[in-house]
Each structure stands twice: as structure tokens, then as C-alpha cells.
């Protein structure tokens, strides 16, 4: 796929307010949903899912990414969130499964993202082959970085990289969403809540002093 072909998916992946509206709105004809809002095949988890159960990716709807796509996803999410001194990389905490689950979901927003992500992965591999004669996952780290530098900031990305930059931004969001919602991600960010406390004392004094605030 050359860069001109990407024009095709600019249109395909462009945000569709109509889709959003349909997802939100009244006005649609009455369907024949199950009494308990139960999920029909391919329609999501329904309006009354079990909230206490622990779900695994692929459990509520089948995952759609092929092994080759997951390879590219793995390489890219680990490039965005690599291991460092504080925490492991994205793929080590299930981010690939999460992204697969996300683009496989039967909801309008996720279906939109699926188009953007799948086409973006195609573009990434095509671009990598063209520049480095290797698909993205097999390219050298310096080459991967050179490619990402062209698309990592939608505000600075020049044509013909504008659409690829939109893909990258969304992919980074999903990578961060998958990573920072895990216990590892909580710890990395310094989220220390979700534990019952006998009392809430308010901010520590040193923080108040640092900001010149009084309680």
C-alpha cells in the first residue's frame, strides 16, 4: 500500500457523528431485546451485565485481530510504553489483549477505532517495508523510532502523515488506557486509593506547604 492508498482510509476512518448519534439516541424502532437486557449474539454485554465477575478479553465477544496484526500491535505498544526502571512494558500486562478486545467490540466507538487501527497497522507495516525492507515488528529499534517520529504528534505531522498520526494518537491512548488501568499501572502512576480508610485526613502537610495552601 503506498501513501496514496491511505487516502482511502482517511475517509473510512473519519469520525462518524451519525454512528454516535445512533448509539445514544432514542428514536430507533423497538427491537426484541431479552427482558433482562441480555446480550444477543454480537451485540455487546447487554444492559444488565454481571458487574462482580472478572472478565477476560475475548470472553464477551470474539477477538478479531490476526496473529500478524497482534505482532505489530505488540511491537508498537511496547515502543510507546517500554519497560523502564519503574515498571514493565505494555505487552507484559495484557495491553495487546486489551487492544484486541477494544477493536473487536460491537459498539459504535470501538467499531470506528477498529477501522482506524486496522488500517493504521497495514500502513505501518507497508511504510516500514518500503523504508527498511522489514515489517514494523522486525525493524531495528532505531528505524521504528524514526518512523514513529514522523507520526507521533498530530499537531506537527506533515502530509502525507496526517492520517497515520491520527492512528498513532489513538493507539497511544489505547496503550495508555490498557496499561494504567492495571495494578502495575496504578503503582507506576502513584494511584494509592481503592482501599477502605477509617478516616480521610485530607492532603499531607508537606504538599500543602509546597503549594502554599491552607486546609
Amino acid at each position, binding site marked *: 500500500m503506498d501513501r496514496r492508498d491511505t487516502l482511502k482510509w482517511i475517509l473510512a476512518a473519519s469520525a462518524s457523528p451519525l454512528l454516535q448519534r445512533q448509539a*445514544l439516541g*432514542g428514536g*430507533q424502532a423497538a427491537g426484541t431485546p431479552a*427482558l433482562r437486557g441480555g446480550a444477543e449474539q454480537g451485540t455487546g454485554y447487554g444492559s444488565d451485565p454481571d458487574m462482580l465477575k472478572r472478565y477476560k478479553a475475548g470472553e464477551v465477544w470474539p477477538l478479531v485481530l490476526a496473529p500478524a496484526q497482534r505482532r505489530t500491535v505488540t511491537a508498537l505498544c511496547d515502543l510507546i510504553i*517500554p519497560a*523502564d526502571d519503574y515498571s514493565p512494558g505494555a505487552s507484559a500486562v495484557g495491553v495487546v489483549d486489551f487492544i484486541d478486545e477494544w477493536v473487536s467490540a460491537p459498539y459504535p466507538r470501538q467499531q470506528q477505532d477498529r477501522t482506524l487501527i486496522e488500517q493504521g497497522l497495514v500502513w505501518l507495516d507497508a511504510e516500514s517495508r518500503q523504508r527498511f525492507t522489514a515489517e514494523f515488528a522486525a525493524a531495528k529499534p532505531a528505524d521504528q523510532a524514526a518512523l514513529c517520529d514522523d507520526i*507521533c504528534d498530530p499537531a506537527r505531522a506533515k502530509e502525507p502523515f496526517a492520517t497515520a498520526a491520527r492512528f498513532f494518537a489513538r493507539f497511544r*491512548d489505547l496503550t495508555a488506557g490498557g496499561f494504567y488501568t492495571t495494578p502495575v499501572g496504578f503503582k507506576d502512576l502513584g*494511584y494509592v486509593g481503592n*482501599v477502605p480508610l477509617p478516616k480521610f485526613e485530607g492532603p499531607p502537610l508537606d504538599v500543602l506547604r509546597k503549594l502554599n495552601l491552607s486546609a
Partner: protein
Amino acid sequence: MPFVNAANIAKEYDVIVVGSGAAGGQTAYTLCMEGAKVLMLEAGRHYSPGTETPMFQTPDMAPLRGAGTPHKPFGFYDATIDGGWSVPGEPYTQTTEAPSGRFDWWRARMLGGRTNHWGRLSFRNGPYDFKPHVRDGLGFDWPIGYEDVAPYYDKVERLIGVYGSNEGLENTPDSPAGCLLPPPAPLVSDLLIRQRAKTLGIPVVAAHRAVLTQQLDFKRSPALLHPGNHKAQEILARHMRQRAACLWATPCGRGCSVRANYQSTTVHLPPALDTGNLDIVTDAMVSEVLMGKYGSAQGVKFIDKVSGAERVASARVVVLAASACETARILLNSKSAGFPQGLANSSGKVGRYLMDTVGSTLQAQIPLLESLPAMNEDAAGGDQVYSPWWLYREQRAGKLDFARGYHIEMGGGRNMPGAGTLDGLEWLTAGSYGKKFKEDARRYYGSFVHFEGRGEMIPNDQAYCEIDSSTKDRWGIPVLRFHWQWSQHELRQAVHMQKTFADIVGAMGGRVKGGGPITDGAQAIAPGGHIIHEVGGTIMGADRTSSVTDSWCQTWDVKNLFVTDGGVFASNADKNPTLTIMALAWRASDRILDLMRRKEL
């Protein structure tokens, strides 16, 4: 036998209450505690917060890391089930697809309704809010004033538990001693907002929320709430003791299994059931009010959603507490020879003057809040502080280009990361990735604040609902069609909100996200229905030709038919409506009890 099968209801009740949320819960509570036999009909399923609330679940246990979907618009762990802006099989229609002319209707088909997930903000209307027309010539005055409702605000606050502070501010009533619980400590971001907003003359004070920062006063309150009624006192004291204080974790929107916040299912219904006076039928979709002899309501017709069978329930009094729009729908669908345009509608006002709240949002990033040390800021699971409307004097002096005020809900903090917490960070990071992105995430997490304006909408002739007889829901009941229009007052108010928020952000040395503030009112305002403060449609008034109920929520046309939900609101002050709904429901219930004792019902 509190929860009963639709086939096993008693032949006759004192009162039928349609709906189990803030209005239905309060109505049933007051009536049952004072001895009336009540049948409650709820369209949704039975719901038990004690066993169903996902208290400490984390996003990695949920599909899509808990992100919102059309099935769960506020996220997977939001307490709402079988609800949202669309409910399967229960459509509604619009007259236009244009965002400015739509009303999106939020419903929660479950026991307790919307009280399970709401924000718990519990503000009293002030004296001005009941007499807005007198002040500026717009909208309608209520036939009651603050002094009529104040004793009921006192009672509701004592019953459900509301934290807050008394500040002595204009049209922002203080509560008598003993009504409010102490407010929680503010977060760092709250304190910074307060410090900087003060330089702009904007007060930031403790929010009022229905969350127990300490255990309720089970020794004194029962006797104050139910004088001379020892059985009621004993039951209430027991339930007050059983409600735990806040454990300072998990967002209130999930509901609360230890009953530390208010939801009808944990506060109103358990003591009402313990009286033995309450039967509840869930999955009971009321379609119309049935009329008997002598111009009185005989009961209601409902569909048992489990069997699909149509059933009838009878009582001396019928109370509609089904939500403003659903109540209007039931009345408009209750057509008979004597009431060809629907029941209690001789004024033609049923469905009219539908209101929501003016909403506008702004988000910002605050460098002073970057890279703070890890600290637990779960706090009370919702807003700790807010800004009550502060420009009364400027408005009186004609310095503002809109009528009526708004308050600001605000906050920040190191909240539990969700699927979208770090979305779109590139506006701050120039698109970083790799180790730099991880450093940026640590730096910016917890440095965001948000402001939500909540303002008064003035009722108008173009905002209403009616029956769309060409569309029926899956139960065969004709659905509602919505008409919607904002006036310039609301649109200009939304612009003023945006400017105010941006000024506060500026005073904090922060940056507004998304290129705001928005200067076009139509862009700044949230679409109709999105703030989920649906009120009006059966407004109360002093005159039967221009309102649906009298000052006691009793319909002018049918004397044993009452409306105790937000439908009776003659105006929609910036104060979130739930506390006022409960106060009016308690007051109406006292009236019903009084009339029943006097054999006038």
C-alpha cells in the same frame, strides 16, 4: 411478603405508588411509616445494592477496562442497569435530529431508579427559587415558598444524611443545627481552586452531598422525624445504625453496599418494608391510571413484564412518581370519555414546560499540580466543594445578559485511572512516546481539573413532550415525542460559564484543554436531557387553568391522584433537583395521610 408477584397483590391498598426512586421511595417511606398500606410498582427489575455493587472492582476486571458504552453510558461499573439514554424496546421519538432541538431521555429501569447512580449533590432551593417570576418576570412562581418546604428539607437531610456547611450566602439556605453532617476535607486541587477563585470574588465552599461522613444520629433523629410513633422510631433507629459511615473509597456512582450514601434502595425502601405496610412489585410497567366512579382514580393498569399479562391494581389514592416524563406519559395515555386529552389535563399542560439544567464543561491542566507525591484522594467519592451562584447583585444591576444563576461543580485529584484518563496527552507532550511518555504520564496524572456549570433553565413553550401515537414500545404502550428549545438566557449563561471557568484556570496558572473557552452558546451548552435533571411536565400552580397540580402535588382534576416526582417543578433552579423532589414528596405524603385520616380521600 414485601416483594410480591404481580399475581399476588392485595385486592385493595390505601395508596399505589408508581416508581421507586427518590420520589417513590420517599412517598412510600412516609406513608408506610405512618401506617398506610402501600403498593409500589416499579418498571425495572429487583436490585439489591448489598450484593450487586462492584465496590472495589478495578477496570482491568471489566470489559473494555470499564469504558462507557451504549449499554453502560457512565462506565461498566456505574450502578445503572437496564438504563441510559436508550432502553432496549422502549424508544422515544424526536421532532428533529438537530442537537439544539433534541431531548435525550435518561431512564433507569431498576428498583431505586436513578438514585442508584446519581451524583448525590443535595442542595436546597432558596427563597428566590420558588418565586422567580416575581423577581424578573420570566417563567412561573411556585404556589409555595421556601418557608413551606424548609421543614421538609430539614427532615430529608436528617433522614438520608447530607454533608455540607452553612455559609450564610444569599439564596443558599443554611440548615438548622443537627441537619448536616460535617463536610469531608478538600483535596489539594480543591484548595488551589478555592485560593485562586477567591481572587476573582468567586466563593468555593463545601458541597452538599448525600454521603455519610459519620454515622447518622440514630438516638435523636428518629424521634424528631416520627414524633409519637414508636414503631417508626424503632425501625428507623435500627436502619440508621446499620448504615455505615463512608469508607473513603470507590466512586458513589457505583452505588454503596454498606449504605454510606443515599439511594432509595438502601435508605427509603428497607425501613418502609420493615413496617410490613409495603408491597413491591418489580417488572411492573404501568401504562395508565384507571378511573372509577365519581371522578376518582380507581387504580392503575400495568403490564407484568415477567408473564406479559396485563393487570390491574386498586387503591384509595394513586401517586405517580415515575419520573417527570414517564408520569406525563402515563397521564397522557390515560384517556377516557371523561378525559379525552388524557387524565388531569383539563389545563392542557400535561407534558408542557419540560426542563433540564443548563450544563457546560471545561477541563484544564494545572502545572502547580504536576508531579505531586502519591496520596490517596478517593475521599468521599464525589465533589467535596462547589461554588454557589454569587452574582446576584450584578444581575440585579443589569450587568449580565441572561437571567438566573448557576453553580459550579468542580474537582481534580488522583482518581482511579480509567480507560481514558490519559487520553490525548499530546497537547502537553508534543507527542512523546517511549520512556518519555511514561515520565509524562507520571508528571501529568493528577494535574487536571474540571469545571461543570449547572444553571437554571427557564420553562418555555417549545420544550415539551407529547404522545407519539404512531410508535409503541415493546409493551404496546404509545411512546413520548420530544420538542426542545433553549432560550437566549440559557445559551448566554453557558457562555458565561465558559468564561468564568477559563478565568479561574487563568488564576491558577493553568491551561484550558481543547482550545476553549467556547464563545458560542449553542456549542457551549450540553444537549437537552444530558444533565439528567428532567423536571416539569405536570407543574404545580395556584390556578387550575395553568397548572396540573395544586401546591400539595394533588392534581386539580382528580382529587385522589397525586404527582410527587420532579414533574411538579414550576421552575428548575440551578440547585440539583433530587433533594427538593424528596422534600416535596414527604410534604405531599403528609397531606395524603391527613386527608385519609379526615376521610376526604
